[in-house]
């Protein structure tokens, strides 16, 4: 008990001392050079209306590649760790009629919405990651509704592998053509139009597929273990 109190005290003190420093950081004030640059020239340089997307996919595209890798990594690791797991699980009840019927209708809509989100990443809030996750949520619904339903591992693997490789190739094309990895080698177009911003929509589409496949894979793996 005393130990617990001491621990709490310790962390409260730690929090206070952290807070006493954090408050030196200004709040709500205008930002410095880099952010200014993105806001002022971002649209011109990238052709993307959504500056966050511009930052995510181009300026800090390398981070995003890493991010995709992290997800891929998580999916792979999950697959590796849960490989060959067999619970002596209780019998699974099939889900209710309402769920399965609704799922049949909602599933394509969710897919469609997800696709919309990642295709319009450079125009509106959203992008590859939300889109991919939305798609995965459709599959989650599917898994809930049809407990026996399987998604082929091969398909998932193929999708994420292809998307990943294409992403890398896109980046390398930039390297080849503009001497800089992930450089925007396609025409920028007019900001605000669907077909603009060069490689950003392309990459977001790839990311959307990839994230969708990976998240579905994660879900599938986690479902699998319940068998």
């Amino acid at each position, binding site marked *: 008990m005393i130990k617990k109190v001491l621990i*709490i005290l310790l962390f409260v003190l730690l929090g206070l001392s952290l807070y006493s420093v*954090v408050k030196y950081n200004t709040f709500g004030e205008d930002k410095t050079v880099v952010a200014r640059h993105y806001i002022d020239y971002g*649209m011109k340089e990238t052709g993307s209306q959504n500056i*966050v997307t511009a930052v995510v996919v181009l300026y800090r595209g390398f981070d995003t590649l890493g991010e995709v890798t992290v997800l891929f990594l998580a999916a792979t690791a999950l697959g590796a760790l849960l490989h060959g797991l067999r619970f002596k699980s209780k019998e699974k009840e099939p889900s209710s009629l309402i769920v399965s019927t609704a799922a049949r209708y909602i599933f394509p809509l969710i897919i469609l919405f997800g696709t919309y989100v990642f295709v319009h990443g450079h*125009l509106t809030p959203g992008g590859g990651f939300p889109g991919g996750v939305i798609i995965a949520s459709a599959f989650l619904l599917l898994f809930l509704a049809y407990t026996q339903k399987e998604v082929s591992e091969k398909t998932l693997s193929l999708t994420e592998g292809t998307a990943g490789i294409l992403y890398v190739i896109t980046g390398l094309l930039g390297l080849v053509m503009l001497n800089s990895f992930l450089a925007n080698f396609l025409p920028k177009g007019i900001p605000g139009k669907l077909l603009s911003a060069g490689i950003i929509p392309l990459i977001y589409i790839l990311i959307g597929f990839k994230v969708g496949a990976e998240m579905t894979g994660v879900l599938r793996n*986690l479902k699998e273990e319940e068998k």
Partner: protein
Amino acid sequence: MNGGAMFYGAAIALIIGGIMIAATKRNLIKIIIGLNIMETGVNLLLITTGYISGGTAPIMNKTWTKVVDPIPQALVLTAIVIGVAVTAMALSIVVRIYEKNNSLDIRKIKEMRW
């Protein structure tokens, strides 16, 4: 209390609270939840850092006047994804541990020490 103090305070509280949960709880799932809370706190901290009073989302359509800093938003996007990955990772290990021990109590896995 200005807005900064509130957000920063909340962020720090989340971080510390998360760590504290991770340190004191014994149920593995709760520990992972603690870690998640901690990540949320960090994300809040990042976002708060990038906030500009009166700013809107940095989407450069016709209506924008003042936008918030886009960088932290991008960073948080990444950080969230990483958090998800770590959580997934942790859960998969926990599943395995549950398989071996039939328990989620972390005290049961103190075999390796000294």
